[in-house]
């Protein structure tokens, strides 16, 4: 069953990724850039889903991890003159540390308290960025354009913000997230995480140290979010507090729920749908958050399993 799941899932994801790869040669410029953005944001959502969908822990403060990766990569390039690669590595390690320490504290609480604690930590992180505005440039943010240099591929020089670079880097990020989460979810460790989601006390009584598995899931999920943030900083050369705001924590929750929590491909689908929905609404009114609210309510009432979750329940039992 598991091997079958793994084989099918890898085929399906391979198909989706191949399609995305080929699409870049046909998409008009506008959608080309939208797709790059969706892939980056979807990778963030995939990391979020690892925690929500596969471990059963709902976080309302994930923007903290995204922003932590984004700012630590960005600031280290800005101040210490790190190369983009060094910035990425630093951002990854920094976020790993942040999420590990956060987890050690936050996971002492459970259920509703955990949610509130994540929300509060997220908000504090945001306030801290504003508070140290001499260093972080507060609300305005800062640009990395003059600090990144160029990327040399096959003897040709490219900017990081070059559309083709953006698209393919985002695609590589997405592909590696899909692959690594699929492998973990279908491994013995994934089985334990799902068991914790389904029945935590029983998992403890099977002889597992539930706390350390939850800590792993949180740290892993946070680090994935951080890498997405760092990548975003490189590809868009901009670092700002909007990515630390509470809305940016709610977004991956919405994308994941809409696409289907606990399905590998769901967050990508959810992100894509919401991106285009908001894009469409923004043409009519500036109050696109109203739509976010309505979609949240409707999804949770009528589609609690999300799109892919419903499809799995009805047709594709093997879907991981």
């Amino acid at each position, binding site marked *: 069953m598991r091997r079958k799941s793994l084989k099918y899932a890898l085929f399906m994801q391979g198909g989706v990724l191949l399609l995305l790869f080929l699409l870049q040669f046909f998409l008009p410029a506008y959608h080309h850039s939208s797709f790059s953005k969706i892939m980056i944001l979807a990778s963030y959502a995939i990391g979020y889903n690892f925690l929500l969908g596969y471990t059963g822990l709902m976080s309302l403060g994930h923007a903290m991890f995204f922003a932590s990766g984004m700012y630590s990569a960005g600031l280290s390039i800005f101040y210490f003159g790190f190369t983009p690669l060094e910035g990425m590595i630093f951002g990854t390690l920094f976020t790993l540390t942040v999420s590990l320490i956060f987890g050690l504290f936050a996971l002492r609480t459970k259920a509703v308290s955990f949610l509130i604690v994540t929300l509060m930590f997220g908000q504090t992180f945001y306030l801290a960025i504003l508070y140290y505005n001499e260093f972080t440039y507060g609300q305005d943010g800062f640009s990395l354009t003059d600090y990144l240099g160029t990327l040399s591929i096959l003897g040709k020089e490219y900017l990081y913000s070059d559309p083709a670079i953006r698209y393919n880097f985002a695609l590589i990020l997405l592909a590696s997230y899909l692959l690594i989460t699929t492998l973990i979810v279908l491994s013995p460790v994934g089985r334990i995480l799902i*068991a914790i989601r389904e029945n935590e006390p029983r998992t403890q009584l099977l002889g597992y140290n539930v706390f350390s598995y939850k800590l792993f899931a949180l740290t892993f999920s946070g680090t994935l979010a951080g890498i997405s943030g760092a990548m975003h900083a490189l590809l868009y050369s901009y670092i700002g507090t909007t990515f630390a705001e509470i809305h940016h924590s709610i977004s991956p929750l919405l994308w994941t729920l809409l696409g289907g929590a606990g399905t590998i491909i769901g967050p990508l689908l959810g992100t894509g749908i919401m991106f285009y929905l908001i894009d469409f609404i923004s043409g009519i009114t500036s109050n696109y958050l109203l739509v976010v609210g309505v979609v949240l309510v409707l999804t949770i009432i009528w589609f609690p399993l999300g799109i892919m979750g419903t499809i799995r329940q009805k047709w594709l039992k093997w879907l991981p």
Partner: protein
Amino acid sequence: MASVELLSTHGLSRQYGGLTAVDNVDFNFCQDRIQAIIGPNGAGKTTLVNLICGRVPPSSGSIIYKGKDISKLSSAKRVQSGIVYTFQVTSIFSNLSCYENVALSAQRSLKTQQGKWLMVSETVIEEQVFESLSRVGLQGKEYQTAGTLPYGHQKLLEVAMSLAADPELLILDEPTQGLAQSEIYNLIGLVRTISKSVNVLLIEHNMEVVFNLAEYVTVMDNGSIMTEGTPSEIENNHDVQVLYLGT
């Protein structure tokens, strides 16, 4: 028949608020036999077992298992050392398949056997899962969602999970509760087979089952041990008759 002690409790007590559920209990479990604890509702059987498994911490007293004091260990650690508990009310992962349920248990015991950092291969897990499921007679149900099984089968699945955990001391808490008569006979046979390789501690209400299976019986009342002995001794004990029949 003074055989080797596997587990013993010394002055074990547990209070809930003002209520003493388990009161200064010295309980011994000896290797290689089926022992049973009986007693009326509220006698403290389940609390005693919960203390042994580490689901509740003791108010005072100690628990010695294989010569070591385990009263400070977490419930997870105790399972790893071989004390496996089978729930009174089934507590399976009802949204997952039977395979996954047993695999969760098997995976843990295989990892304990093979050392901490080795990743257990799925093939080995699979072998263990199929073996455990067929031992309880659930072969062919591997990919059914556990929650959709009939109640009797869920209890058997619970037993299969415990077997896959590679227990040294298997605690069965009211295994026959809620089962039909035919299922009970089936279960008695199963427990007897299991007891050939595993030490079984039985918590039961059903006297027929107890006298059929147990080689040594402990009677609890009001949080303490009332009397102990072989099934025939217990059957003829006047106090026990009073306790159960009210005569």
